[in-house]
């Protein structure tokens, strides 16, 4: 039986997946960052080549595994494996990228099956560096897709931001949830 105890973080290179997992994890996260040598180098010094892993331990001992997908598309063969048993998807988008809407479409397409089966929240990062596009424009981009998820501005370094984003994910699965 599949155990639904994973939360998957995805998004393009530099969107803050590793940082977000570090913010939430109760244990030092396992990172697989390597020095960037390809196009990634222009956006950050190192990048995740396999996956990131963090963990939250709940009262009673249950564990929630936090997985971050590698940002580079050439590792997308891993994404299906990672999402099996996932509770939902946290998509982080970098507002300073040349075309964040293209990133949005790309990841929604790649994870379409997983999103349909579970739930989705979107965190837009780096808004302090570039304020536009506004969140309302992201909502507009989603019109006609049948998706209307929570979209929040997020600073992946701030635990509170990441926590609120994941809380919204849980509430979209079970509105009225009490905790």
């Amino acid at each position: 039986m599949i155990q639904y105890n994973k939360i998957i973080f995805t998004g393009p290179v530099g969107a803050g997946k590793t940082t977000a997992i570090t913010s939430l994890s109760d244990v030092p996260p396992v990172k697989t960052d390597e020095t960037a040598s390809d196009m990634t180098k222009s956006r950050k010094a190192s990048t995740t080549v396999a996956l990131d892993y963090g963990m939250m331990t709940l009262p009673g001992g249950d564990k929630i595994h936090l997985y971050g997908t590698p940002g580079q598309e050439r590792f997308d063969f891993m994404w299906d494996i990672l999402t099996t048993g996932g509770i939902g998807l946290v998509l982080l988008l970098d507002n300073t990228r040349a075309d964040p809407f293209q990133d949005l479409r790309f990841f929604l397409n790649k994870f379409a099956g997983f999103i349909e089966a579970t739930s989705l929240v979107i965190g837009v990062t780096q808004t302090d560096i570039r304020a536009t596009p506004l969140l309302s424009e992201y909502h507009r981009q989603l019109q006609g897709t049948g998706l209307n998820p929570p979209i929040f501005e997020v600073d992946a370094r701030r635990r509170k931001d990441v926590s609120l984003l994941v809380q919204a994910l849980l509430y979209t699965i079970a509105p009225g949830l009490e905790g």
Partner: protein
Amino acid sequence: MTDLTMTPLRLAVLGMDERTAKLFKMFLQGPCRRQAVIVEDGEEAEACMIDMDARRATELFDRERQTHPERVLVLLSLNDCASSPEAVFVKKPVQAQGMLHAIGRARQILEGRKSRKTEKADAETQPASLRTVAVPEKSDGSVSKVAALLDEQSFMSYLGVRDDIDPADPKQAAAAHYNPKDFLQGRFQSACALALSRQQALRVETPWKPLVVFPQTRRIWINADEAQLRAACAIPMTNLAHMDIGGSRAATDLKAMAIDAAEEQLDPDRLIPLDAFLWKMAIWTSKGKLPADVSLEHEVTLKYWPNLTRFLLIPHTMRIAALLHHSPHTACEAARILGIRQQYVFAFISATHALGLIEQQPKQQIARAEFQPSAKPEPERTSFLGKILKHLKMS
């Protein structure tokens, strides 16, 4: 120089009869070792002690907040209360130790304010070359732009307690509404709408203080701190028209003009996101009531989730958002389904209404199945999700 730790704290009292006030005077002089005194002339007071179990205590609290926002409030109550940032609670029956602790806390708040004022004054008088010292702080993001959480206790301290209403009772229904146009909220909303429609940075003279709106980045600037704003939000326009606060006398019309060169150079870190500002104003103004044009009989849907990581969060914000985003409900139904006070739902609807995030429709005649999400998780799974949620909230 006055040393706050040496001189007695000057207290005004509200909600107490003469006899009780006299007893307190003796109590402060004796068991409390004259760490505080009740001042006859209330105007000299640094703090105000209110009996929250007295009749109309909430009204007294609100009035004191508006007229003397600089005072620390010491609230006495039989109920167990947690401290909020600007008020100190003392549980009844009042004992010397609890009272001394409260006096100490009130002094700390006053000291904190005093040193913040000094720092601000120092920063303003320092030569420009020294101001760069604070720059590293900015890289971590401005705290003022991050969501603040108003828990149930703070919500009630700031906004009062409103009993749930029977929506079928016309009198109660009328009392549960307010008109944003009767308050600054309406004027500020109009000012922002004006700038957004013109897509031009505007300085708008409002009946209180001028507002500078930058529509391209959806940011605003106003020369007021949180406490001033909160107090101003609560004053009806009719009263504001007779007051001289903020340096500009109340005017009935909005006067908009293009911003001047100095305003173009405003420090970006002092600009507030427009949506977060309007959201907050609506919460302070509504005080747990519904805007006049939201019907209690209509079902409300949340079109989009608000940007909750950057907004003032009232109790149960996420639950209300999730429910109204999932399916339409009347405001009172939503409160009943979630098992929460109506005033939280009303305040949430006010804030989302101010941002144009809700839609209303007449209630469906066919009774909708009671809150049945299309794929409602099994109870075991819901309990597991609840555990994750609790963990996230606690840690």
